């Protein structure tokens, strides 16, 4: 019984992790049609912003929820202005440019921060579940994922900005004709996506540490989740995280973590064969 509960928590945690690492990418891809290959590096920069500011004496939670998202959002907006803006609608060029950007950011981080980063231990102690102990931080990660999902839903569904953003996403030309400053909407959306990536990077930094190449461990899973999710950023990311997280974690629990990763990929491949435009390309078309 205790073991089943522990397994359930592990599965929820796997879902929450996938959702957090992919939601920033999903927003940028779903709302703007931009494939951001430097997404992993946004997470890495969030992690560095968090760790460096904690070591500089900033409060743990302030560093995580304020410093890291703001720092990465700022970098994101600058990158949007300098690079992405000139490449809207040109998918292949965007991929090339953001891939180059990814290599540049890894190189910069290697020479500025290096591979000798100090660690920060996760707070919140541990929670007793029957005979077992689970890190309190695990529950915190699940909570943040839920809060991010609810917050995004509210922002996109119930605020004027959400309405304009959704309108722009459906038809940029029409939105522009109605007097919406499309460039500004794109810029803000890119900033929000980057901020969420920065937040995710900061959340995982105490658990895994941060290295200049940390982004590479996230990028493949984030892309698989987003592509399987399909066109709708929030619903898609949430549904495909739930599916992939459950499959891979359940496999890991009964066998090994290697097989868990294999099952994640197999599921994604099979589903994309059946649903080439992702889950939300077929179902839940009216969501966000």
């Amino acid at each position: 019984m205790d073991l089943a509960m522990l397994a359930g928590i592990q599965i929820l945690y796997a879902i929450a992790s996938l959702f957090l690492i992919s939601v920033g990418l999903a927003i940028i891809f779903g709302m703007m049609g931009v494939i951001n290959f430097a997404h992993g590096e946004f997470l890495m920069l969030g992690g560095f912003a968090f760790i460096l500011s904690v070591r500089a004496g900033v409060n743990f939670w302030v560093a995580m929820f304020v410093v890291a998202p703001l720092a990465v959002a700022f970098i994101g907006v600058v990158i949007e202005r300098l690079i992405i803006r000139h490449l809207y609608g040109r998918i292949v060029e965007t991929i090339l440019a953001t891939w180059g950007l990814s290599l540049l950011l890894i190189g910069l981080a290697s020479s500025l921060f290096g591979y000798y980063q100090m660690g920060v231990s996760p707070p919140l102690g541990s929670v007793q579940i029957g005979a077992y102990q689970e890190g309190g931080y695990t529950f915190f990660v699940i909570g943040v994922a839920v809060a991010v999902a609810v917050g995004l839903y509210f922002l996109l569904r119930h605020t004027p900005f959400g309405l304009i953003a959704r309108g722009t996403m459906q038809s940029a030309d029409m939105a522009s004709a109605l007097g919406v400053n499309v460039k500004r909407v794109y810029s803000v959306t890119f900033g929000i996506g980057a901020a969420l990536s920065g937040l995710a990077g900061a959340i995982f930094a105490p658990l895994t540490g941060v290295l200049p190449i940390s982004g590479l461990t996230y990028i493949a899973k984030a892309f698989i989740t987003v592509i399987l999710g399909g066109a709708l950023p929030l619903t898609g990311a949430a549904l495909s995280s739930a599916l992939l997280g459950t499959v891979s974690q359940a496999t890991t629990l009964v066998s090994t973590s290697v097989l868990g990763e294999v099952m994640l990929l197999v599921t994604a491949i099979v589903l994309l064969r059946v649903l080439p435009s992702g889950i939300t390309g077929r179902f839940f078309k009216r969501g966000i």
Partner: protein
Amino acid sequence: MQISRRQFLGYGLGGAAGSLVGGLGFPSASLAADTIKAGVLLDLSGPLQLYGHVKAQCLELATEEINAKGGLLGKKIELVKYDTQSNNQLYGQYAQQLALKDRVAVVHGAITSAAREVARPVLARAKTLYIMNMINEGPEGACDRNMFTTGPTPQQLLNNLIPYMIKKHGKKVYILAADYIFGQLSAKWAERIAKENGGEVVGLDLFPMDVDKFGSTIGKIQAAKPDFVFNVFVGPAHAAFYGQWASAGMNKRIPMASHTIGDSGEQLRMPPDVSEGIVTVKNYFDELDTPASKAFIERFKKRFDDYTYVGSLGVADYQGMLLWAEAVRKAGSVDRRKVIEAFESGIAIDGPSGRLASHPATHYCTMDMYLAEIQNSRFKVQESWKQVPPVSAGDDSCDVLKMPL
């Protein structure tokens, strides 16, 4: 001036023949020159620079010290370094280049055993001596007459560590290891040694190098209820385990032993409440309180201004260079055959880790070993053993002396 086709062909062939003769005429350029070339294959960029940077510094320091004392056979040693960029493919390419183009007398290098297995056959084919300055999985992974290994084997590390943990904490052990030749064979040795000492393995998990989430593993370990956990973690991703282990509060309940922790000074970077109490065995710690070790660290600090930690991996390179130089002195030549024979006749040096002596049958080394526990982010030596051989007495599974030279 007009050149007819026939003349042109003539010039061309003549030139080609000339360079061919030139190439054949001086087959061992390094022997004729006034320096002795030693090749270095280390990852100075990419994730493995974490280890490669300090290892290259140690080779430099040893070379400079030998040169300052008059060099080797009256000649200076010149290092020819290639950055393998944490990319195993480059080991093959650069090993070939060192052997055939630079014609070095010896190659020091490789960090992972997987990289070693790329360079080793290339160097064997080119009949170029190879020295691997690393802790590795022992002669079971590579038994080769053309190669010397100056780091410790699993038996040197675990023959003392596992019985110590069993005696102190109990007989049930859970093993976690990196999923490649070094991790797999080390885990196998740990299992064998645990069983020989009345222990019982209640779980064994292997992880690819990029796994950094261990939540389900920590759950499984709790379900298996071991008396202690032994790990063979490798690389920065695996280092994430310790934080997650501590976050679940397990570091206060189940003791942890590892023979890989601290190889890049990670005990200095881990939060103290995470690292406290982890036990390890190695042949060298910077914290070693011997005159030779203290003097070595002083010399290192004086030469390089970015000192953080040398550790056993770096010292293996420093001592590997000294041991090779000793073999060359004894052989009176850098000729591969003579150097191998000198090594097999039994040579020894006194380095920062104590006495390091060649072990002829395996081409590994006999060395002093220390067991330490992390206290306040530093290794505190608890026990030591003098002159531990690389394989247990009576183990003749590897005998390079039977191989053709």
